[in-house]
């Protein structure tokens, strides 16, 4: 199998990249740049999923998010000429600092929680959990009920999108 050190290196690179690209994504003025940085984040996350043996989610992450959704994003941005981005008055307003402080605070709290986390009696389930076969099997048997509900959820989402578009037209 893959040596543990290699796993560590991949993990470090992917996770640092994910954080870095996320920050870049938020701070870019140009929406196209932001969108592209987001693609990088998604791909780094996909790598992390691979490391966790969640192959199905990793692949969907790339196909659905990094592929399809980001394509739509870029398409829309270019269609309505948002490349310039809205003009902002202040680069670092009080509210932004406040937001950053709060977010960091929440992050710290969760980090502290994770730091004190001790695995007790709970043992992780058998691997591999996340390959396409297992996921597919579970989705169409045990989890069929919420899966079907999720389909209605998607339908409602579509209806909503259509509604918004229709209003624009009128």
């Amino acid at each position, binding site marked *: 199998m893959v040596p543990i050190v290699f796993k560590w290196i991949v993990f470090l690179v992917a996770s640092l990249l994910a954080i870095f690209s996320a920050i870049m994504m938020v701070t870019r003025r140009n929406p196209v740049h932001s969108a592209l940085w987001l693609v990088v984040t998604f791909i780094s996350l996909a790598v992390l999923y691979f490391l966790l043996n969640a192959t199905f989610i990793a692949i969907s992450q790339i196909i659905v998010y990094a592929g399809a959704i980001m394509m739509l994003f870029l398409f829309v941005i270019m269609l309505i000429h948002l490349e310039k981005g809205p003009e902002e008055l202040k680069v670092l307003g009080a509210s932004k600092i406040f937001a950053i402080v709060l977010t960091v605070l929440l992050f710290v709290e969760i980090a502290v*929680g994770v730091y004190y986390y001790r695995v007790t009696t709970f043992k992780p389930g058998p691997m591999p959990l996340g390959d396409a076969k297992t996921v597919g099997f579970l989705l169409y048997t045990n989890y069929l009920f*919420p899966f079907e*509900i999720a389909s209605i959820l998607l339908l409602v*989402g579509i209806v909503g999108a259509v509604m918004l578009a229709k209003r624009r037209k009128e």
Partner: protein
Amino acid sequence: MDVKFPVDELILIAPEIILCGFGLLLLLIEVFLKTKSKSFLGILTLVSAGSALVFVLKLSSFSTDLFFGLYSLDSLGSLTKGLILVMLILVVIMSLRYVEREEVISGEYYPLLLFSTLGMMIMVSSKNLLTIFVGLELMSLSIYILVGLFRDNLKAAEASLKYFLLGAFASAFLVYGIALLYGSTGSLDIKGYLEVIAKGDTSTVLIIGVALIAVGFAFKIALVPFHMWTPDVYEGAPTSITAFMAAGVKSAAFVTFLRVFYTAFLPLIKQWGDILWLLAVITMSYANLTALVQQNIKRMLAYSSIAHAGYILVAFVTGEKILSSSIIYYLVAYTFMNVGAFSCVILMGRKGEENLDIDSYAGLSARHPFVAFCLTIFLLSLTGVPPLAGFMAKFYVFSTAIKAGYVWLAIIGVLNSVVAAYYYLRVIMYMYFRDPVKEIGRIDLSPSYILVSLICIFFLIYTGILPRELMLLAEGAVSVFF
């Protein structure tokens, strides 16, 4: 591996299937209907809600887990489903006229109401956080759209967007909490948590998960400080949807909150009890104080709904399984007085002129004694005046707190309801003792609103004078916690 999907259990979710089927059907036939005959959709919605209610009643004696434990049928779920369906029926009856009057986009209005109700029903009768989350999202997403269904109304669009953004934010908390719980226990089933906690495995990650789930629910039931969206959204939404949200979303979210916390996390009450105590106090006090200065009746009722969530939380923090029936009682009573109050608000308006400021109500008793009378009953019930159901509800909730030893909380609650009396009675005072300030024109006395008002009044008086039957039902519902 040979797992078969239990097809024979489908009959037990007949109400859900009916709502879902009718929702899809309505979306389809809307295309073929002429604009004039859209109220046909409303009638169909009533039919589906009615038949679903019949099935809920028929199935109410069952108590079983379905679909590998991802869904379930029990007394708590059945009672809440019944309540939600009755609420849906009332809202649809008032919508029959309202949608036409305000030219709400009706083609999607009714299907979305059905889907949102479906979401609530799934949410309240599930013991698995995954299903709960999907149900909650179904409910929320439908409502985000419903809020914005006013044609040519920027306020509604703004409200819809605000609610959507903040709702997504809250959902993120909720789903993160679920993920942390799954990570620390390996379970999505709420009974699974109880097993882990009973073994004494309370890790920090688990507690963060509990906290984040609480935040998610607190948003849906509008506890301070997660309430900020409420006044804006309640004000911007079509009033029928406001009633639907105030009564339905609150009931569904509260029952689910109750189920999750009382089934799984009751041993941790020492941890979350205090913080919810604090939230209850802040919620009641903040909402009531802010409501005092509202001039817009929908905003006033929005703050009132926040305050009522605070009152219910008073009983919630006690952690008394038996006495939690008072929460159910409160939710039922609250549903009827709220739907009734909003039906009166609708009555006051006309196309393009909703007459929401309190000045419109001045001198109402002379011009429209019936409307004034109905609204007075609802406001008195919200205030908690005997012999209306609102009084019994407050009585049960506060006596629960006292019996469980939360005397101070009960005192704060009672003081708050005294403050609240001010803004409720102020409207009554305007209606009866003020001379009309402005001409509000002919108001729209359609039978559909009157019917709703009368049903609600009857219910409030009936359960106010004879609270016993409803209380027994509520006690039966909370017996699932044993």
